[in-house]
């Protein structure tokens, strides 16, 4: 089982990329689980074609411990196991603490043993603003963190912050930084800027995704690009990135 946490600035394209990776890997016959770690609970939307899925935290709030794993998971496109942590209503409670509890509940409900996924993706909200958002990178969860970034300054700052959190936790047995994914916004000197960031963080770009209207089009169809436009160049790009993410050797990272 390979567990990967995907971080990055808000709105940078994490959920889009993770969902397409899940879909591409499912097409390759792998069993994938995607866990949205975001109170918005929209990570797996395109995999489940907009079908509603009760969030883990809402279910726990209503039913305490009297619920089954099936109530907080569903099978999306290609049999991808979807789960959404959920969280408090905006402006109240503690979203970070919510992520911890949601991930613990999934674990104690036996999600990993019962589904036995080959790959688990944690799609984690924006920046690592508090303890709860480091949960997916803690021991027992993801072994590897991927950061999605564009060449925009805000996105690069956010990526640097996430990398700093990972660095701070070295010695704790947490996840390692596995590399950056460049999601193009077509800003000036985009690739150069992100390569410079890679140098600072001693990491590499493991894949690049072009900006494309197909993403928006697929989104209106409530589907991933991989499902909606399987023969497109975009789908091929997601397929290639999926292979890199799952099958690449760690020693090849620095290429």
């Amino acid at each position, binding site marked *: 089982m390979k567990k990967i946490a995907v971080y990055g600035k808000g709105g940078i394209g994490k959920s889009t990329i993770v969902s397409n990776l899940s879909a591409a890997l499912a097409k390759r016959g792998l069993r994938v689980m995607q866990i949205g770690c975001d109170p918005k609970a929209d990570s797996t939307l395109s995999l489940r074609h907009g079908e509603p899925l009760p969030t883990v935290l809402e279910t726990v709030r209503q039913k305490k411990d009297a619920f089954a794993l099936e109530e907080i998971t569903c099978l999306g496109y290609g049999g991808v196991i979807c789960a959404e942590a959920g969280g408090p209503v905006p402006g109240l409670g*503690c979203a*970070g*603490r919510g992520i911890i509890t949601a991930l613990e509940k999934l674990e104690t409900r036996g999600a990993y043993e019962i589904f036995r996924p080959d790959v688990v993706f944690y799609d984690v909200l924006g920046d690592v603003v508090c*303890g709860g958002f*480091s949960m997916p990178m803690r*021991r027992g969860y993801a072994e590897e963190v991927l950061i999605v970034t564009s060449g925009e300054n805000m996105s690069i700052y956010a990526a640097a912050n996430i990398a700093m959190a990972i660095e701070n*936790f070295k*010695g*704790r047995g947490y996840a390692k930084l596995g590399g950056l994914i460049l999601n193009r916004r077509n800003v000036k000197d985009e690739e150069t800027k992100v390569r410079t960031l890679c140098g600072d963080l001693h990491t590499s770009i493991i894949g690049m995704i072009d900006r494309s209207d197909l993403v928006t089009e697929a989104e209106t169809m409530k589907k991933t690009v991989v499902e909606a436009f399987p023969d497109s160049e975009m789908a091929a790009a997601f397929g290639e990135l999926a292979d890199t993410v799952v099958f690449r050797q760690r020693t090849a990272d620095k290429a």
Partner: protein
Amino acid sequence: MRQTAGLISTYSSDEFGICSALYELGGMVVMHDASGCNSTYTTHDEPRWYDMDSMIYISAISEMEAIMGDDEKLIRDLTETALEMKPKFVAVVGAPIPYMIGTDLSAIAAVTEQATGIPCMGFAANGMNYYTKGVSMALEAIVRRFCTGPALRTENLSVNILGATPLDFSLNGSVDSIKDWIRENHMELNACLSMGCTLEDIAGAGNAHVNLVVSYGGLAAARYLKEQYGIPYVAGVPFGERFPVMLAGMLKEAAASGQDLVSYQAVGKNQTPPVPDAPYIGSDSDEGQKNIRYDGEYSGQERRNCQLTGKAQEQKNDSQNKRNVHPQRDKVRISIIGESVFSASLAAAIELDRGISARVLCPLDTEDQLLRECDLRTPEEDDLMEHLLETEIAVGDPMYRVLCRDGQRFYSLPHEAFSGRIYDPVNPNLINRKLEVLSC
């Protein structure tokens, strides 16, 4: 009103359960919490505090440390103090603040261990769970950590006691009486988790033939010891006169068969009145568990395996002859409020010795298999009050008396985890003796 205790006290929390379970083991226990009211653990809920030293500390987390997530200060303090005090282990225990800010105590323990070379464990307590959960976490962690070597089984049948803390058993000699009772029944005491026991004893817990689980807090450790060493467990506390005889037989039976038993499930379950030689048959209510069976006799093969001595066998037969009463469960007359294994054992003892049916009202953490069919889980004060109306007699901590209706008979059985040390001098030891000491 739901989820409110308007009349009664509340139980000790998980942090206290951890402190209590680890108290005598030579470790340094650090509660990661603001300085102040958690000293109630030592002043109210720990009867050993004035007579026995133990390294129990509060980290005294400050508001700014909490806001800024300053784990480094805790790690520094832990490292410095551990290097100075040289404890056998370090336990960092969570509390509401670290819980809410998501402090990773296991990771902090791992970093401290690297710095000091002393075994360190992190406990995700949050002050919102009962002590039962804390005892369970602590005992499981300690056996997982220290009980790893190969098992060296002795020839004589030896027993671990799992789940003994003053929070359930006070310091009234109960735990010593359980130990004496084990020896009287020609078994050896191996380790007692965790009263009157060293960390070295615990490291050898894998040597026992059978585990006696005396509270819910001992169950998780028992499961680990089963998984790791194949040691079966028997849940029960030897209260009264007849139940201990039966329980001793079950320890031997479990040691021989390798099967886990919840001793009191076998009492009064079957509506056929027991006669000498008739089997007690009980079924475990936990789905998927095998039925438990206590037939009071062993096959020749089993007898050889568990080396029953003549004396124990004699005693057992003797008890079967005495067992001439059989409670009718549909006429439950006594409600016992308290911890599941403790209370259900007491209920079984009362049924066997007095012929009066008793059921448990359990407000604490437990599992269905540790309660009998007639017992109830009652986490809410309102429910408790309602259910108390159903029986003539109530048994429980004196602080429960206010929930009883006027004129209801109430037998007080002070429970340290509920009323602290207030009633200490009148706390009766009911182990392996006539049940007349319940004071009204």
